[in-house]
């Protein structure tokens, strides 16, 4: 009964999750598929790798599974997979091969997928994640945010660090896409017919399988985010969850705290954002706990996350036991890798997000939170470093503040990536320079930024055109301050009698007189001196 109620229940309250996690432990493993968009061509043919386009325009006999066509492996994709493995502390196989994974589906041209089975390119790695803020509360077993043992504590912000194992990373080919016609919202239910677009078929796809080391929805989100940030730093993929170049499935089960056996798991799919990933797992944990509380049992099945309804639902059709009948792909010879080649790739790995964050803290004195935010997204980090190179290391904190403040708000409001921002790194460096040398005030800088974000004009030019140079000349400011004091004798008397809160009134009056161009620090100083 309880289960039934939950099937239709609305959004999950956060405290329900916390409450459940006090009694139950969740065991979560992720399967993360990432398209290798860094390569020019598909995994086994010469067709270009790209998103979208007219259906079935990037296809050939090989990726259409025409009779007699053969796969030829894309060595660059294999190299990218090895690089991804090295960046996540995996062992790289010296000997590996592809297998055929066999099942019938219309989006799969050959009705088998060339994948890997017992000899993946990468295995046995890990990624360290840090959880802070609200997400810490999900770890009920840690007894609250600050008083836990177990995963390594990060005391300064009350968070914790956890190591998530990576079972394997293997390489396979992506499938095509089905388009269902005639039903509602492109769903298969009620559709009159289905179309298949094979543009995506054969795109190189890395599948990462984590160990079931994840215990909370927040850890799952942090893990997926960390991987995305590593993939972006490597440049292996554009990692767009919306466009499907990064897809995360979660295996979720729960067990009573203290129990050692594993509960029955469900596999949750169709999360197309990190928030969905978190919420879907949270929903699933509570759903399973409610079933167990009611004396019922969890059914092993695949469940789809509906982001609109904020719930998962099982496939209505009966689950078929899949026997993929893996066997070694006879159309390709096995691969053997030279350890020197692997070592060379390991040496040429770029700086990864954690190292970058630590460097930002050490080199620029950024607070940890800012350093982490800037290093998590490769494009953001590049922008930051470009701007600092122009503005000077001593202005790095100011650059960071602007990026995480006005720039982030601007990107958010416009819904654009940093690469599309009209305000380039060079422009932000210029803006920071104008503030630092006293040409404009911080308040004026906000106006200049807003202008530049629309016009794309250089900050210097905007300041010039608007005649908004800051006045720092003490004698000019003194003249204005005297006029203001003379015009407000009562307020001046009250101030001198002890109502020092009136300082703001006088500064405001002066700034208004100066049309905002007075240097706030100088104005403040002069007002105090002349009133005193």
């Amino acid at each position, binding site marked *: 009964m309880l289960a039934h109620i939950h099937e239709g229940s609305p959004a999950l309250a956060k405290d329900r999750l916390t409450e459940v996690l006090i009694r139950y432990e969740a065991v979560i493993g992720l399967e993360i598929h990432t398209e290798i968009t860094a390569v020019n061509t598909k995994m086994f043919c010469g067709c270009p790798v790209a998103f979208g386009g007219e259906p079935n325009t990037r296809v050939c006999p090989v990726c259409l599974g025409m009779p007699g066509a053969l796969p030829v492996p894309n060595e660059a994709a294999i190299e990218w997979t090895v690089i991804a493995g090295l960046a996540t502390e995996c062992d790289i196989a010296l000997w590996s091969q592809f297998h055929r994974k066999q099942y019938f589906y219309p989006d799969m041209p050959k009705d088998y997928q060339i994948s890997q089975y017992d000899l993946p390119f990468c295995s046995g790695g890990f990624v360290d994640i840090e959880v802070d803020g609200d997400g810490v509360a999900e770890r009920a077993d840690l007894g609250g945010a600050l008083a836990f043992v177990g995963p390594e504590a990060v005391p300064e912000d009350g968070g914790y660090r956890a190591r998530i194992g990576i079972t394997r990373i293997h390489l396979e080919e992506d499938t095509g896409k089905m388009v269902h016609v005639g039903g509602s919202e492109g769903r298969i239910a009620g559709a009159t017919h289905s179309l*298949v677009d094979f543009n995506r078929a054969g795109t190189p796809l890395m599948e990462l399988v984590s160990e079931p080391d994840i215990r909370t929805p927040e850890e799952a989100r942090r893990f997926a985010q960390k991987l995305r940030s590593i993939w972006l730093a490597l440049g292996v993929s554009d990692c767009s969850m919306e466009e499907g170049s990064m897809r995360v499935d979660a295996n979720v089960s729960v067990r009573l705290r203290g129990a050692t056996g594993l509960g029955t798991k469900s596999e949750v799919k169709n999360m197309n954002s990190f928030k969905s990933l978190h919420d879907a797992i949270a929903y699933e944990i509570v759903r399973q706990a409610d079933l167990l509380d009611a004396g019922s049992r969890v059914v092993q099945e695949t469940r789809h996350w509906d982001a609109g309804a904020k719930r998962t639902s099982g496939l209505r059709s009966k689950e078929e036991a899949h026997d993929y009948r893996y066997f070694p792909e006879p159309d390709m010879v096995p691969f053997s890798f030279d350890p020197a080649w692997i070592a060379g790739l390991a040496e040429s790995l770029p700086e990864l997000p954690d190292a970058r964050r630590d460097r930002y803290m050490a080199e620029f004195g950024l607070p940890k939170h800012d350093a982490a935010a800037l290093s998590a997204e490769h494009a953001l980090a590049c922008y930051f470093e470009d701007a600092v190179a122009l503005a000077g290391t001593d202005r790095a904190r100011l650059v960071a503040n602007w990026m995480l403040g006005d720039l982030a708000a601007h990107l958010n409001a416009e819904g654009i990536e940093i690469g599309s921002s009209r305000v380039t790194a060079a422009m932000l460096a210029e803006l920071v320079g104008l503030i630092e040398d006293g040409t404009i005030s911080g308040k004026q800088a906000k106006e200049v930024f807003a202008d530049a974000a629309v016009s794309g004009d250089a900050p210097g030019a905007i300041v010039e055109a608007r005649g908004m140079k800051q006045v720092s000349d003490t004698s000019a400011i003194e003249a204005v301050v005297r006029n203001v004091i003379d015009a407000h004798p009562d307020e001046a008397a009250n101030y001198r009698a002890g109502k020092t809160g009136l300082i703001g009134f006088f500064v405001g009056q002066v700034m208004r007189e100066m049309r905002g161009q007075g240097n706030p620090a100088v104005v403040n100083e002069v007002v105090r001196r002349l009133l005193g």
Partner: protein
Amino acid sequence: MSAIDLSALSAHQVRDSIAAGEFTAREAAEAAYARIEALDGDVHAFLQLTPELAFAAADRVDTARAAGDELPSLAGVPAGIKDNMNLIGTRTTCGSRMLENYESVYDCTAVRRLLDAGALPIGKCNMDEFAFGSSTENSAYGPTHNPWDLARVPGGSSGGSAACVAAGMTSISLGSDTGGSIRQPGALTGTVALKPTYGRVSRYGVVAFGSSLDQIGPFGTSVDDVALALEAISGADSMDATSSSEPVGSYADGLDQGVRGLRVGIVRDMLDLEGCGAEIRASVDMAAETFAALGAEVGEVELPATRHGLAAYYIIGPAEASSNLARFDGIRYGHRAADPADVLDLYMRSRAEGFGPETIRRIMLGTYALSAGYYDAYYGQAQKARTLIIEDFRAAFERFDVLLTPTTPEVAFRFGEKSDPYTMYLNDVYTIPVNLAGNCAISVPSGLCSASGMPIGLQIIGDHFAEATLLRAAAAFEEATGFDPVPPLVNSLGS
């Protein structure tokens, strides 16, 4: 009849005659079609004739000659192409209803190379459905008849390719060989038929049966022609990751160098297999004597693991086939069942309607062998047997340059004679181990059966990429025996 008797001319002679202006390539194509007109109603070697392609190719040869260009090695040579090889402008049916209307959208590399050497694509040859069979009786379009006796099978699965050469309809042809599908019909039709080393010829464009076993190879009426065709189609191909970059020899040169000092091994334990006809067994010993007389060092060798060959092959071949044939699902091309209830119904009925019984048998065998819980007992064991067979051959080739066996345990049988699959499978008992080991082998005519008058084939097996040695041995044997079999059907035409 045309004035040109293709059955009396080697491919070499056709090319040289055209180069010398004795006749044109167009006339060679006309001769081929005239012969087909006269005989193919009885033989049924072809599923499809492609005169537009053949005459266009012939005109290119004639134009090149008129311009004084050097003609390529197979200029104007009429050729048949097994119907599992893609060629734009043709249907590629694989002898199956499933692909009855399938139009090729690209060219098979080996076919492309044959045509680039100037060969004329006369038509697509009949075959057992998806190459599953040893008689062409599994073709969805009716069997091919053996030009030596129309009541008998031509062998298979490349029966059409063998018959069209045997009947002089084309000078050469291409077949494919997964377990003997070139050599066995070669033996049964008295033609020369070669299965190259795995990787020698690109598999790109030949519809896959057993990917680790398949090779395309040529048929001809002489070793010389087969060497010429092999040279044309061999070599690395960027479209086939299993094709070898091993250099391609000048196979047609040096065929006359003899076999003095060549180490020839009779595979004694294969000869002693039950079911091998006495006359066939004797023919191998006679061949060995011929080699000895030519100065070869003849000895005996045993390949004990090859007794597991048939069993291993009927796991590995169907396992790979079950996977390769999954794509025929009615979704993108090929037969699609009418009014499917859902996608599962579409799959099941399209495949049930499109595939013949032997194809369904092989798919079921292979699916079973790869299934969870059975993989180790079947596919795993078969791979172990295969490793032992490879090791047997490797050891044998340390002692010998070529090995001798019969190509088949018996001569061409009558239609319907082998009604259960197993006795049919036994026909490939000598050829199958060679595919499992990846070696090259050739079948050359070695005589006629005294009782039936049907041709007998000698299988000569070579080491990996030792096609030059293999062909040299075959050419010496061919010359020494002076045996140039022409079926009575062809003789009856007079020409």
